[in-house]
């Protein structure tokens, strides 16, 4: 860890968080709400009891992974916004293995997790190849892949994976393929440890290996990377593959790591937008794997604590969303600014 100057960005982030909160407070004052009361409800709601903390972390779990997808892309010089679709496919992969393949305990859970990651990674391959071979811009191709994934996943969920008699969702994960719940009736499962471990591994990979160094160099300065003999195509493929694994894992955690449904809804309602939210999380987390974990907790807190703003401080739910959005935008501005500057300075 000594290799990374963590504290400075962290302090900067805390400063921007307070700016974001002030911005949200101004919005509330404009609409005649008491911001102190509302924020108190938000914080107590998100962190006030063990139960709430676990709930907040449950919301954070998939987000730290989809944030990783975007972050690894940016580190490699790519705007990979395909986390959404890769995550759908990850959910499908996990659903298939967890719900329909009876396997011995232990192995089953591992296989379902691996299937999710693999499906996510495979879905990331076409845009990567298109970029490497034909120079197709990844923003375009990943958006298209997101839509294809949406319809593909819906189709598979309804026609092949549906639970008999309850076809609005897929067959639930068999008990052998479920991550254990951390406390009784909590939404948080041991899946969060897998997610954290994955983020840590990616961090160590990016900053501690030759391949990670080359990936970051290609993102930081493509000309210098060429000078250093880094092969562009390899970096693109690698960055997409890691991103796909992360997004696929995110999708899997929502199936085999999140009660009560343990399955995928035919509307994809229990995974939808998690991939896009990851972009915001990544920006707040400065496109850093560890920063992304912290930012995901913040997002989780807003997602879970937001309902208490509504419930206890009476803030209109639309306004809660607006305030959360405002906080997130404020937080993302520095990183967005950096990205934009880097683009134009080339």
């Amino acid at each position, binding site marked *: 860890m000594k290799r990374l100057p963590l504290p*400075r960005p962290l*302090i*900067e982030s*805390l*400063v921007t*968080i*307070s700016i974001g909160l002030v911005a949200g407070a101004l919005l509330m004052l404009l609409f005649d709400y008491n911001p102190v*009361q509302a*924020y*108190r*409800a938000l*914080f*107590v*709601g998100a*962190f*006030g009891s063990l*139960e709430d903390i676990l*709930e907040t972390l*449950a*919301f954070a779990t998939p987000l730290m992974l989809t944030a990783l997808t975007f972050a690894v892309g940016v580190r490699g010089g790519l705007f990979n916004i395909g986390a959404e679709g890769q995550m759908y496919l990850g959910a499908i992969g996990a659903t298939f293995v967890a719900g329909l393949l009876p396997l011995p305990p232990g192995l089953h859970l591992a296989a379902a997790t691996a299937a999710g990651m693999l499906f996510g990674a495979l879905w990331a391959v076409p845009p990567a190849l298109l970029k490497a071979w034909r120079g197709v811009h990844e923003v375009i191709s990943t958006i298209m892949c997101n839509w294809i994934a949406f*319809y593909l996943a*819906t189709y598979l969920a*309804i026609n092949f994976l*549906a639970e*008999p*008699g*309850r*076809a*609005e969702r897929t067959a639930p994960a068999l008990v052998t393929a479920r991550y254990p719940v951390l406390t009784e*009736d909590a*939404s948080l499962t041991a899946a969060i440890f897998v997610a954290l471990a994955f983020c840590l591994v990616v961090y160590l990979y990016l900053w501690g290996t030759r391949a990670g160094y080359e990936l970051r160099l290609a993102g930081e300065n493509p000309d210098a990377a060429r000078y250093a003999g880094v092969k562009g195509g390899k970096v693109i493929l690698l960055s997409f593959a890691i991103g796909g694994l992360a997004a696929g894992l995110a999708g899997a955690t*929502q199936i085999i790591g*999140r*009660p*009560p*449904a343990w399955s995928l*809804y*035919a*509307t994809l*309602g*229990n995974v*939808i*937008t998690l991939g896009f939210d990851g972009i915001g999380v990544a920006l707040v987390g400065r496109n850093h794997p560890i920063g992304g974990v912290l930012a995901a907790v913040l997002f989780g807190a807003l*997602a*879970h604590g937001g*309902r*208490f703003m*509504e*419930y*206890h*401080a009476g803030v209109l*739910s639309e306004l809660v*969303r607006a305030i959360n959005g405002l906080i997130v935008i404020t937080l993302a501005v520095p990183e967005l600014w950096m990205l934009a500057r880097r683009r134009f300075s080339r």
Partner: protein
Amino acid sequence: MKSRLWLVALVTAFVMLLIPPYAQTPAPAAAKPFKIAVVSDVGGRGDLSFNDMAFKGGEDAERDFGVRMVELVSKVEADYVPNLTTAARDPDVQLIVGVGFLLSDALAQVARKFPNKNFVGIDTFSQFIVKDKFPAQYPLLNLMDIVYEEHKGSALVGALGTLLAAQYNKPFIGGVFGIEIPVLWKFEIGYKWGARWATEWLAKNKPDKAFKYNTGFVLWTYTGTFSDIPKGYAAAKAMYAKDAVAVYNIAGPLGLGINQAVQEIARARGLKTGPPFWIGVDANQDWINPGFIIASMMKRVDKGVYFATKSVKDGKFRGVVKQINGTLVLGLGTKVAGELTEGISVSTLADLNEFVSMGQNAEKLTGKKVLPASPADIRARVKAMRDAQPPWVWSAVAELEKLIRDGKVQVPFVFTKPDIEKWRKELG
């Protein structure tokens, strides 16, 4: 150094926010307040149908029983459990309503965790989940699923549409559906079954207007969305282009798209009233464009919420749950303890006012114009439209309703893949 100070200040601020738990407004020494909490599904408030109907039920209960309603809007599926939990943790809340079948799992989980609170699910099947997973606890006495016989209501509007096709000598009726999930299959097959019943009725009673049912008569499209209004417009436009006399909305807000397609034709031909018509769903949607919505298949979600609140208020909730084994069916001619508790009907002029005032409420809430005309004007135009149809149309629908209520005919209830395949082969 400067940033260090910042950090200290921030941490202090966070800690201060955490220390005093949010001040519960000190409860007045008087009677214990009675709150009901309504947890919406991701559709949320303002859909002018399903979710709004649930809130309407809560408002009616507020008015009649002096309870207070709190709302929790779910933004994502993952909000269901925490939203239900939040409501259950409020000591004043005695009844928690979960709106929508997607809350089934969440309700089963949270209801087991809070045995002292009462839970109601609209369209849910939580008790089946309890039965499946925890057979010893079934039925959970603090949990009631309320389900509706939409297949029967759909059969009625299917018949109505078909009779109008006969009257105006039109070749088709249509249906615009949302995402293809099994819940919609009962609407689909009920609608088609009603259409076929109507052709048989015509053959017997109106031979001059009669035609033979065929599998192409009902045009139907699953748009794959419950929110993308332009898709509803596109689907309906294609149906009206084939000269369908009426199109049934089974996709919530997509009804606005269907309405747009109708409005386009009306403007082009200078029509003041249909045909073409469309058919509303869930709420009484007849006021949305008076003269062009021939009727609505009403699913009285509000009555379910109202009934549940009343039974909690009267201390009868758990008794009822025990008696009905956890699932309350509201439909045509359904009864609880000998008392008629219905929840499905074809809209009438009589219940229009209630829903016009729902529109007025929405106007107050959003500050935007919702009603297309003054309430009196709406009423006059809907009445004129209904009066313009021949009486035998309405009496035939009434006849089917009676047959269903008396159990003389059985509308197929479709919920499985083999069933839907079988019925589609038969009805198209």
